[in-house]
């Protein structure tokens, strides 16, 4: 089975993605991750205004199979949280790279983004 790995963003080995937007950097988990987890039933995220550090846990995703920590691909201040996930956690399964986004982080260090895997490198990892 092959998984969608869009090349417009960067990836963390632990299956989070980071996508630069006009406001900051959007963060979520990958298609591969949502498939491994199975049906997501709950997502715990930080509050807006909280700060997160690169490589540190920023939240928890719970599926019918497992409870997993989420690791921040980049650090900064939480600009926005996808509150739709609290009522509709299935968005993470249905559209992991779009509607299933989790955080928007601002003030991230450019170099942190560069440290992450490219789409090709991430695709090799999950192959």
């Amino acid at each position: 089975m092959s998984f969608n790995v869009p090349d417009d963003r960067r990836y963390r080995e632990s299956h989070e993605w980071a996508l630069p937007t006009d406001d900051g950097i959007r963060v979520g988990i990958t298609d591969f991750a949502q498939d491994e987890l199975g049906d997501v039933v709950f997502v715990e995220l930080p509050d807006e205004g909280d700060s997160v550090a690169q490589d540190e846990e920023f939240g928890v995703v719970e599926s019918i199979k497992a409870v997993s920590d989420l690791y921040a691909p980049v650090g900064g201040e939480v600009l926005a949280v996808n509150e739709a996930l609290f009522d509709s956690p299935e968005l993470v399964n249905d559209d992991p790279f779009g509607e299933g986004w989790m955080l928007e982080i601002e003030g991230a260090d450019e170099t942190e983004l560069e440290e992450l895997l490219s789409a090709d490198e991430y695709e090799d990892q999950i192959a």
Partner: protein
Amino acid sequence: MSDDPRDDRARYDQARYVENGQYEPLLSEKDLTRVEIGGDGDEDGGSPLPDELTRDSLELPALSEPELARHYTRLSQMIYGIDSGPYPLGSCTMKYNPKFTEDVAALPKAAVHPDRSERSTQGTLELLYRLQDYLGRIGGMDAVTLQPPAGAAGEFVGIRVAAAYHEHNGEGHRDEVIVPESAHGTNFASAALGGYDVVSLPSDDEGRVDLEALEAALSENTAALMLTNPNTLGLFERDIAEIAEMVHDVGGLLYYDGANLNALLGRARPGDMGFDVMHYNVHKTFATPHGGGGPGAGPVGVVDELAPFLPAPRVREADDSDSRSGEPTYELFDPEHTIGKVHGYQGNWLVLVKAFAYIARLGDEGLADASATAVLNANYLASRIEYEVPYGPFHHEFVASAGDQDAADVAKRMLDHGVHPPTTKWPEIVPEALMTEPTEVESKATLDRLAAAFNAVAAEDDETLEGAPQRTAARRIDQTDAARSPRLSWQALEDDD
């Protein structure tokens, strides 16, 4: 008043958790004032409670006795338990609970108020003392506490005792507990809850502890290695003596998870293998009921060096034996460096009575025979099923692989064939695992019936498996919906209709 309702007890009790640490009051400021008026009633002479919290009548079901009896009989027929048929959940040791243990626990003399004096409860104390002694001898441990109320609670107590021991010896810097990746999930949780960093240990190709990986994981920071033996694949860790030496050489302790003790009774003892601390799952090994949220018991045994740290109080023989009869007397005492109490009084007393009754009735030979039969039954069943069993030789349980089938579907389909399925999808070292433990209580005829169910399902197509179960009171449960939209009361169910 502050904005945080937790700052005010009366308001906090009336607050509803919204999300992200936010609370909103269930009652308005005005409502709270009215509640505080108490029974005086409000200005209209009505209830002092807000309207939404009052009602004029109770909705009690109006049923005749036979209707009620039939309702509960029907519910009992919808479930499957060890009294209905075989229950081969691996690593759970779902033994039949002999009814005589219930009789013993139901004796009026077993109903002893725990606050009665030691002098008037000598029989109770003697039973506890003898159970400490039995368990100690069965496990090869020098001292036992009966307090922990469940296996996982026993693990936590064992880890706390190990921590107190290290702390006492000036070794409080030890902050790691090593756990094999195939271990029961509770081991990781107990170590983490005990404040330790968990180091996960990979298995070798044969499914046992990888000695090279263990060597690499051990250090001066190792507080303990947690093991179950036979392990969760049913395999005996034959390098256990070397493992014990390696752990002890770095100053660590060896913890025995008693979940699989049923495989060893009367033949081998964790204490003799070099284990320093262990818990006993009396509901698995000594046929007390599984807790299922109710009372359980998870006694902890330790070697002499750790005994001073056990929870308080324990029971011992008193020095001043009864001079008239020459009979020993018993008393409670606090171990010198005790970690404190972990449960009220002596733990779940009536569960301990059942375990005592079971051990006393079977005796040395009976326990060894039960264990041998459990191993024989597992091996017989495995030899009769067509699913592959990749790891062996195994003892009281085996892990078959469902191969190209989905283990969860296999389990659902086995229900249609009239038997309870094994544990599925774990341990992960076996793909689509079917972890099976028939225990000693099943006859050859029942094992053949179980094997027939396995083999019938093995021959079925995916469509049949995915549509199962068809013959049970409840069909396939939508686990996702149950987790996303839990309906936790009958009102919620009615709202759905």
